[in-house]
């Protein structure tokens, strides 16, 4: 009797262990499969119109044109465009998020801060395809209007500016929520000391509270950057998918790594299909790289 119980215990433990191993192994599976498929265009020969071609890896990385028959693919300008729109988005999102968080935690009356917390949570819950729809229906109109002011004919409002605004809206909740946590964690003693020294509440908020919360706020920014780089649907709906670049005109059509991967994925085969996995590798590397750099900066800020 006792033995049977021991055996069941062992079996159950084995099953649960297997489940845990299975869950953990997915990450390896993902990396291996994407790597194999994504590296293929640089090593395998593809039959295109009778000839056999592969893609030059150097040309792929610095290329300024997405596609040229038969085997020229360039992703360099797309990397620059992606970084450019994400930076633009950050310029909008960082001040708005930090000040919103400050407002919620330190300035607003209780009711207002509760409302704002809920608003931010709802914004975080809205699916990206709806942001894309909003971008397509409203923000592109706004871009067209700006274009008119500068006497510039936009491509139906699809532009780098539209992408940055949509991305900014999408990462504001992320950064705001983490900033809130960071600001709430600032010790009241510090605030009291500042007030006792004769600083006004506003001075205290900006010079003491934000300064002590900067490390936590920076974690929010890191998460926001990750989300912005990986966002696909909303971006694709307002990007316009520029075929060449880079272009630094905010009113011009643009392309991001994700929008390039997503466009027409179901209509292609062969090299044109496989190359999207290579773009996927570039995207993962870009996200890891930006994470690394931002984390180094965060450590510097924390120690300063």
């Amino acid at each position, binding site marked *: 009797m006792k033995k049977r119980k021991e055996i069941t215990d062992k079996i159950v433990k084995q099953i649960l*262990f297997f489940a845990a191993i299975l869950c953990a192994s997915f990450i390896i599976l993902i990396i291996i499969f994407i790597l194999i498929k994504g590296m293929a265009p640089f090593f395998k020969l593809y039959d295109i119109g009778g000839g056999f071609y592969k893609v030059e890896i150097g040309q792929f990385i610095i290329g300024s044109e997405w596609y040229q028959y038969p085997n020229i693919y360039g992703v360099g300008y797309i990397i620059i465009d992606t970084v450019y729109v994400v930076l633009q988005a950050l310029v909008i999102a960082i001040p708005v998020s930090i000040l919103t968080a400050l407002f919620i935690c330190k300035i607003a009356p209780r009711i207002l801060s509760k409302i704002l917390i809920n608003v931010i949570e*709802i914004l975080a819950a809205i*699916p990206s*395809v*709806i942001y894309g729809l909003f971008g397509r*229906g*409203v923000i592109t109109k706004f871009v067209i209007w700006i274009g008119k002011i500068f006497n510039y004919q936009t491509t139906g409002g699809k532009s780098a500016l539209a992408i940055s605004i949509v991305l900014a809206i999408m990462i504001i909740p992320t950064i705001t929520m983490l900033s809130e946590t960071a600001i709430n964690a600032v010790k009241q003693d510090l605030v009291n000391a500042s007030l006792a020294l004769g600083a006004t509440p506003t*001075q205290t908020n900006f010079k003491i509270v934000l300064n002590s919360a900067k490390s936590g706020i920076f974690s929010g920014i890191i998460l926001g950057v*990750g989300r912005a780089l990986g966002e696909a649907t909303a971006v694709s709906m307002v990007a316009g998918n520029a075929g060449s670049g880079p272009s630094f005109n905010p009113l011009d059509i643009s392309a991001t790594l994700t929008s390039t991967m*997503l466009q027409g994925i179901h209509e292609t085969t062969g090299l044109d299909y496989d190359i999207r996995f290579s773009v996927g590798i570039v995207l993962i590397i870009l996200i890891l790289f930006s994470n690394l750099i931002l984390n180094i900066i965060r450590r510097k800020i924390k120690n300063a």
Partner: protein
Amino acid sequence: MRKIKDNILNAITYLCALFGILILVLLLIYIFSTGASVLSFKLLTSDYESESYSLVMPDEYTYVLNTYVNSNNSANFSTKWGIELADECNTEGVDIVTITYIDEKSPFMNLIQNTNKTSYKIAIGSEITTMAVYDDLGNYISVLTNKGAAKAISYLDQGTSIYSVNIQTGGGGIRGSLIATLLLIITTLVLVIPLGVMAAIYLNELAKPGRITNILKSMIDMISGIPSIIFGFVGLLIFVPFIDNTFSSSGGSILSGALTMSVMLLPVVIKTTEESLKTIPNSYRNASIALGATKTQTIFKVVLPNAIAGILSATLLSIGRVIGESAALIIAIGTVVKDKVTLTGTATPLSVHIWTIMQGENPNYEVACAISIVILSMVLILNLSVKLLSKKLNKGEAK
């Protein structure tokens, strides 16, 4: 001087805080003002693809003069033909003429399909695209439907026999996508909840704290850092061929989408479950073991029942994520809107349906916004439930 500076800084803070509210209000106004007009029960229950039928009268049919009773006192009722028409607006916002009533003895009940000569019962609500009749003298009269129902009736009443009737059923609806979303949610939950809960139990209850456990945990954490579009590609690479081979289907399917979503949601489910496992006091476990229960019995009879709230909130979070996810599903399932939804066939969940109708030259903003209203209300209800649940959970803890 200091006061002015403070006021300026404060004003900027107020403006920034307003920005979030402004965006939400703008978004809601846009979605509701565009989508509310086409959001109807009909949109939710009708098919996406419309089907056209060309109907004719069988040769052997003899017309009997009859006066039909206009029981509804409708203005657009033909007492001669026993048929009532109405002006309507289809899901794309185009004015059409539809059939709202047919008398049982009406000649319209005897129409057959032109292609295979089988009888066809006209469904109420079908759109009449074109119609032609003959009058007494054998003159051909085209019944124009583009000038409204009243005009069509007046043309129709001039005729005495039917030459042809072309009708079209519904179309533009989202019934298929609604079903696909439900199926996707169910299959994803069936896959991810047991696996995630099992892994969480192992990591929290059985695993010895140490290097291997930490490595396993950080590997699961890494999954959550991968953008959703990459999951789509993984699904396309691993799960689509797997499902195709197992069920001899072709291309993306709801099952492959569900597998993809499961991998994506694993970290969420494991984390949420683990958190609720951690709130269970150790005294519970010790008491159970002290009473002579085995580890297995303790897990299934003491630990799991106490973690049920956490598992429930993991479920709700997963449902929300499945409803909102688009990028991964566009790739792992496909973008072809289907009316007949099967687990192994391609179909579009609601979010991908939006993506599909937004492609092309003339995006259908109205229907896209109507679907958005549906998605938004589902997501908001789910979020509210999670909030209430966690509130209840915290209360239980405080006791």
